[in-house]
């Protein structure tokens, strides 16, 4: 069954220096499995807040977030931890690899946190590293890897628990353009292979990178300003239209390179980690 994440009237406020700032103002949208979605907008727009709520890193002050029909907005800290561990994979701007762990150990970290023994999951971790093109770096520590390599390790780690949702926060923000492009390709590949259902949501300032995605959501002043299809793929006809969301059918947004939605069937996921080298 394809993933759906429904946000309904989500509000998130922060108190800063005696003032209340509304980071998200009654946001309503749907994230679909099989889509590579980017969230763009100026600094302070609420992009990261939206990402944090999608990944249950934080809880909204009001509103509902339904993950495949399960409400995550009111989860306890313990429940959120379990949810993140099994349902979400994170890719961070600053890689966030543990410096004392080797590449394969970093990939296996979610399993370790889930109570598995490291040795038991080594082969899976190594297979994932192989998939992202780092099969010859499994025993290297982060200090021995380049930025691009570290980010690929981070992507492999995000896939370790085979989560239906991957959240990437400025994944190319710390990389040069060619390395960044490679990471984008990898993320796109992640969203397309392994069958239908996995969603990749990326926060980025890079409009060029955003235009490579299936869908671009623009956030401004805590609200969704636009929700357009991206350059590449389309929303499959079987997926219901998001409530109050928009997919422009035709037309072109001058700010991004967006194209009309073309309805096609998404490829099916085959197995846990289909081999694909980037």
């Amino acid at each position, binding site marked *: 069954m394809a993933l759906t994440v429904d946000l309904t009237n989500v509000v998130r406020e922060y108190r800063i220096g005696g003032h209340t700032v509304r980071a998200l103002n009654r946001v309503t949208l749907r994230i679909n499995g099989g889509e590579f979605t980017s969230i763009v907008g100026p600094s302070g727009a609420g992009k990261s807040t939206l990402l944090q709520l999608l990944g249950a890193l934080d809880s909204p002050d009001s509103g509902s977030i339904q993950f495949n029909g399960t409400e995550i907005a009111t989860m306890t800290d313990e429940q959120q931890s379990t949810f993140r561990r099994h349902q979400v994979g994170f890719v961070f701007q600053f890689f966030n690899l543990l410096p004392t762990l080797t590449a394969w150990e970093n990939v296996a970290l979610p399993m*370790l946190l889930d109570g598995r023994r490291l040795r038991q999951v080594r082969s899976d971790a190594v297979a994932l590293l192989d998939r992202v093109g780092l099969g010859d770096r499994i025993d290297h520590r982060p200090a021995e890897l380049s930025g691009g390599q570290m980010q690929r390790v981070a992507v492999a780690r995000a896939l370790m628990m085979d989560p239906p949702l991957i959240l990437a926060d400025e994944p190319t923000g710390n990389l040069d353009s060619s390395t960044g492009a490679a990471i984008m390709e990898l993320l796109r590949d992640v969203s397309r292979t392994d069958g239908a259902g996995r969603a990749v949501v990326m926060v980025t300032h890079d409009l060029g990178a955003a235009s490579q995605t299936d869908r671009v959501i623009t956030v401004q002043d805590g609200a969704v300003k636009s929700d357009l299809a991206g350059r590449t793929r389309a929303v499959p006809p079987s997926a219901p239209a998001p409530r109050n969301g928009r997919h422009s059918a035709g037309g072109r947004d001058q700010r991004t390179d967006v194209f009309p939605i073309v309805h096609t069937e998404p490829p099916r996921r085959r197995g846990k980690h289909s081999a694909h080298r980037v």
Partner: protein
Amino acid sequence: MLLSVFSRLKVLNVRELRTHWGRAVASIVVVAVSATLLVAVLGVSGSITGSIDRLATSIGGDADLEVSGITGEGVDDTMLTTVAGTENVRAAVPLVRTRITAAGQPALLVGLGPNASELHSDLQTAIQHQLEQGSPVTSAPDGVVVGAGLGVSKGDRFQVAGTELTAVAVVDGPAARRLNDAHFVIAPLALAQRLSGRQGRLDSILVFTTPGADQTVVRAAVTTALQGRAVVATPSFRAAQASSSFAILQAMTLLAASVSLVVAAFLSYNAMSIAIAQRRPVISTMRALGGRRRTIMSDMLAEAALVGFLGGLVGSAFGILIGYFAIGQLPSTLVQTLDARLEYVLPLWVVPLTVAACVIASVSASALAARQIHTVAPIEALAPNGSTTADPGSRRLRIAAGIAGAALLAVTVGVVTADLGQIAIASIALSFIGFSALCFAFSGLIINAAAAVARRFGPAGVLGAATIERAPRRMWVAMMTVLTAVVTTVAVTGATGNAVDSTVASFASVADADVWVSSAAATDYSSALLPPTTAADVAAVPGVERVVQDQMAFATIGDSRVMLLGIAADSHRDIYASLAPADRKKLLAGEGVALSRDLGKSMNVAAGDQITLQTPTGPRTVRVLALVPYFSGMTGTVAMSLDAMQGWFDRAGASDLEVTLAPGADPAAVTAAIRKIVSPETFVYSGDEALDGVASALDQVIAVITVIAWIVVLVSAVTLLNTLMLSVLDRRREIGVLRAIGATRAFTYKAILAEAAGIGIVGAVLGLILGAAIQYLTSVALTNVLSIDVAWEPKPSMIAIGACALAICLLGSIPPAVRAARLDIVEAISAD
């Protein structure tokens, strides 16, 4: 499940410790110091009681009871028949056991009667061959069996107390080694009595009861049969008595070791606090990836437990070594009363208890710090890495700490002023914890003060102040370690100095005698009697105007080993000098006794009450004339007239002579003349030397405690070094930015030193104030324990001592300051 936990700990926590091994080693070393002190102190006390117990068991085996003398003079050998004839006594084995010098070495002389085969002990096993032949020793007159430890060969002749003996047999083996480490001479009873000058007397009678007999009933029956003229107790009684004589030193050294453990706990708190601050990005990442808070927290506590465990183990090993060597260096006043060769005996529970204490201290302190994990939000994983600020702790927690601290102080003051004996010393540790809690309650003010002090050091100080204000909790812990160092040195050196001064002052009257002639050195107890003609011989020396005899002995009163003092008129003994004139008259007339204050308290008697003293000549009921402040180092002192002591305790003669010179006599000449006519084993010294001897004996004991106090200072210096070093590492990028925009190396260096100075000076000032307060409380506690009035006298030298402690701690700030100054700018800026 357990395997997966180990897997996670090994990868995430142990590897972290190995990567930052310097910090881990510093933490382990500090914990190890505490463990070393604890094991050393407990090892020494265990060796004292263990050696005595082991000797008692080696000689008496499974003896049910032991009849021994009330004083060290033993019992009349006619009591043997009485004991053997008591109902339910199966066998009564007479013994002489005393310390001698044989073949130039200290040894144990054991005299055995014909029924020695009743003993089922190492002694019996060692001489089994001889016993099978019908006698402990056969073949030669003056023949003895010697232990292999003396290095004497079979057939050798050697001297004991002027008598030539023949070693007819040399025994070795495990049983012999357990008996005073094979340093013994076994002789027939009569020979042993002759060698020890105990003709007609026995040191003890070992009693074996009939199977099924009630030992309590038999003990009472034997006591009644002997009319209270001897001590009837279990063989372990000797060890218990020895333990009580060591109790004061043990209490004070344990207190110092406990303070060291508190410092280790501070370091554990600090180390955990810094570890969480440093690993914040890692922790937030793990939280973002779905790691549970309680899992992360429990893993951190497991890490703290590991540090505590390793520190406890390493420290225990060193503690065993130090204890092993320390038993040979114990003050003579301590070992003098023991009749066993001191061997190192470590009770089995010492190391596990020490390791457990270290683990508990490390984990408890770390748990307080680990609560900060709750403040690490998973969303931080999305934030750029950098230094963080920390809050000073919840207001509620500080209020609770303030209340708890005040309560602990109130309890301490109550215990100390209630005169509850040695518990008062233990309560001093409570006062320390109470003051620490109060400092936490006022941590905001204290940190502000530290920052204000740092700002006084110019622009570099402004940076140092900002660092202090940004990490208040960490800086508070560092300041507390400096405070602890200053408090410990000021309170310990101050209080012990006050105790020594007060004790010496209480003995001042002994300096009024021109010359002392004694059976022991001025630093030791003179419990042995002088040769009978000594008093007359000394009185006949030209220039001697008057000779006053007195006597000192150890005796058992109830369950306690006390000192007896037999006083004559015109004595300069301090306990006599402090009596009112009317009481002195009564004492000399034999109308009563004076008790030291501590003995009066333990016996629950007051002036005017009647007490019954067990004596070799029967029970004596006497009136307590007064309770007098008097420190003896035992559990108490009983002063009586010399006549009473000689008569009641069957001890003719004197152990000391107080000599007054005739006007105009040359002290040096008379002293020399006296030395010529007394026996070689007799000591002659001036009144001033006698007083110096008292101070010297105390100094030996105090020295141990003072050394421990300065060790605590070193531990605090290590803690400060650790804190500042980690603070520098935590702020690498910030320091790099400062250097990039023009700060010089010298400026950076000064900023760290200013930070340390702010913490150190405030910590030292508070330490001086609290140190003086704890010194006062300790002086009051020592008054209760030492049985003299310890006058609280804060001295100007305390400021110098506190400044020294501060200086040592600040030395710990130099390495981190140097490190900060030498940071590579480019590396530092790119640090995360």
